């Protein structure tokens, strides 16, 4: 089944492009300056110029090369993205499965907490966390993960609730399986599909939130270049160099589009295999094959 999934994913040209783009970005972020000839933190006297043969994407107020800074900034963005999504999943999924499987009291309590967090958009939750903990990469990951875990919990719970009633789970119980076995071996593998998609979606959102926090000055502290931080500076120099504000945003947007595309493609690829499992089952009654 995995090869089938891969094949279906690969048929979507754009998501392959997206994947390539992300890999290229990752790669370039690790090469500090080799591509552009400038280091991300090297200052110069060519301040606030637009795109030129020397500085491909222009330079900032300290003469640093924007292109290099953008590439370097990818590091923290991708790290925060992957880290938050992973942390959110590791916390949210077990919670959701437990709530959905056992129901009643466990469900009620877990859902109330989740409702509170879900009631507030990610940015604010993250803001509150950062305000309390102070800005740093780790804190940012914790903050965003806390805001995103409820989504995973909700999805896991919904999936568990639906799977729980299906005959093959009942059959497992009829064969004498215990609760833990059922949750891990039967329920979890069957609810993976939306969770994987959510992972990608969370990662995409994390990049935007992280940029937003950096923009507000609450992100990763300087001198580490971040996309959001660059945009913050760009706003101050809006009238002098409009280019300063355009490129970081473009890179941000492209990265998020790429992640979104991959997520949509995954959803499509996995949705079809799930549908196969449901196609005949939804044609009930006598006479259907």
């Amino acid at each position, binding site marked *: 089944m995995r090869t089938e999934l891969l094949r279906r994913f690969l048929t979507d040209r754009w998501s392959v492009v997206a994947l390539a783009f992300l890999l290229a970005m990752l790669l370039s972020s690790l090469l500090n300056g080799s591509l552009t000839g400038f280091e991300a933190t090297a200052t110069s006297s060519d301040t606030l110029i637009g795109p030129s043969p020397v500085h491909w994407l222009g330079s900032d107020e300290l003469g640093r090369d924007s292109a290099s800074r953008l590439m370097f900034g990818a590091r923290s963005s991708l790290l925060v993205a992957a880290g938050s999504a992973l942390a959110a999943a590791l916390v949210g999924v077990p919670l959701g499965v437990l709530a959905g499987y056992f129901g009643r009291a466990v469900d009620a309590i877990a859902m109330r907490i989740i409702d509170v967090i879900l009631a507030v958009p990610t940015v604010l939750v993250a803001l509150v966390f950062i305000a309390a903990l102070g800005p740093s990469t780790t804190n940012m990951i914790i903050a965003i993960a806390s805001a995103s875990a409820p989504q995973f919990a909700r999805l896991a719970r919904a999936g568990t609730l639906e799977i729980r009633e299906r005959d093959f789970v009942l059959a*497992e119980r*009829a*064969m004498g399986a215990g609760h833990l076995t059922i949750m891990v071996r039967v329920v979890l593998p*069957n609810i993976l599909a939306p969770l994987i998609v959510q992972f990608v979606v969370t990662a995409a959102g994390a990049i935007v939130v992280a940029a937003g926090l950096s923009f507000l000055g609450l992100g990763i502290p300087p001198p580490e270049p971040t996309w959001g931080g660059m945009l913050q500076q760009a706003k101050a120099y809006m009238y002098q160099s409009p280019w300063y504000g355009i490129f970081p945003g473009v890179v941000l947007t492209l990265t998020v589009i790429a992640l979104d595309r991959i997520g949509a493609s995954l959803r499509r690829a996995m949705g079809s295999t799930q549908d196969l499992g449901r196609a005949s089952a939804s044609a*009930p009654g*006598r*006479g*259907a094959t």
Partner: protein
Amino acid sequence: MQRIGDQIAEIITLHGGTRSEAQRRAVDLLDMVGVPQPATRARQFPHQFSGGMCQRAMIAMAMANRPQLLIADEPTTAVDVSVQAQLFDLLRTAKQDTGAAVLLITHDMGVVAENADRVCVMYAGRVVESGPVDDVFTQPAHPYTRALLNCVPRLDRDVDGALAAIPGGPPDPMAERRGCAFAPRCPQRQGRELCGSEIPVLLGMPTSPGKPQRTAACHFSTEPPVSMEPDEGAAPSRAGEVPPDDEPLLEVTQLVKRFAIRKGVLSRTVGEVHAVDDISFTIRRGETLGLVGESGCGKSTTSRLLLRLVEPTSGDIRIGSVEVATAGRRSLTAVRQRVQMVFQDPLASLNPRWSVGENAAEPLRLRGDVSRSERMARVHELFERVGLLPAHSGRLPHEFSGGQRQRVAIARALITDPELVLLDEPVSALDVSVQAQVLNLLADLKRERQLSYLFVSHDLSVVRHISDRVAVMYLGKIVEIGPKRTMFTAPRHPYTRALLASVPVPETGRARTGAPLQGEVPSPTDPPTGCRFRTRCPRAEDVCAEVEPPLNDVGGTAVACHFPVLEPWDQTIAGADRTGDTTMPSDANVMTTGGPRHAH
């Protein structure tokens, strides 16, 4: 999202009626199709209607503009047999009133026999036979029609030995085809080349003058029919041939299950669903007990209670020496190795992410004491026995057909060598031709391994074929239980008789009388006092409302009725207890498919 009345009215206004006119007519139509309190009901929403009533509303919608042609596509697949009888009555009346022609699409041969004037048999996208229903049923010209009529279990007589199942499965619609599509399964073919190279043309056949034309698409339709060989690998068997042991394997005593209904702000329990209300029965070693009833009678809940997948409210369930209702974890696990279950929908009961081999081996894996290689060996052994290729055990469930998936489920149920197998509607989701194969397999397995079965089904013909004893349930109670023979030749309970009379039999020439069972099943949250069937019983008297009838032995069968029927039963008269007028058949075309649904 839309009110019923509005939906019916819409079809009128779409074709040029005024709004108020349409609304009035909608209420009239609802009345005509037998919906009680039509004016109130018209303001309700679909979720407030039962399945049968929804179908009536659909019929009302279809008849609203007095059509000339009414197309009914499997109109009764999702409803109970008693409601089905009512709905066909209704269709008959509607047809008469409007003079409409009816195109009835169905897979049920009984329905065809009772309702149609002409029949068209389809296979793999082509018409293979057509003609007046009498002729086609008594002297089918196409081998497929013949096979179809022969492989169905009968309500009116016992089929000795195995069912004459059609080997193989329905054709793949996407496969390339040369020649006749039925050729791979056809007994008439006898290896002849022509069937595999040329597609037979639908040709007219000689009929008596004045009768509608008969056609058949077979190269050899004029030859004397070659009968189907019994299923390969299955020696002729008799269900019930093995005399059951005297000692009961399963003993159920006064089993009760009530579900609480919670409503309101604080989830207060406002009522209870009496799903299973004080039933008792036994199953002996080597015996098949058929459990029949309509939806909501509690038969599925009963089977789940036996494995304690649902907690009983009270009562005893004794399997061997273990008391299931109160068993501790270890005893319960041990019991679950001796008793296994096969579910209705094979696709839903197999884990879609595991291969069929893994699915089948799961009970052994859970037991923990069998190594992987041993498990695989066992799986291969069982796969061969149930008619699957062991080489395919690595494939996923969705790659198999319904019949094959059910075989996997059966293999899974047998892998721990159980003594009792609970089968919950195991063939209801299968095509008619595949159904026979699976039934034969079950009968063979039972004989070979001395299994006992609890066979839950709503399909009385199937139950007749496979059971030794039969229990009839209504609203959570067993109303009649006894040997199969007596049940079907001399049923004593009025409900049993009405049920039998409602089932359409695939034989033409019977008088079409009105539906024997009117009204709908009362709500299980508020069952009638005394005898639960009394609200629909033609023999009910005052005592029936006051005193609940106990199960009394009447000539070898236990019946729960104050006035059991002692007259014999003859299915061919289609029920002497029925009331209702005989309707004269008017012109109706009927199309039947025994094949897969995508064939039409």
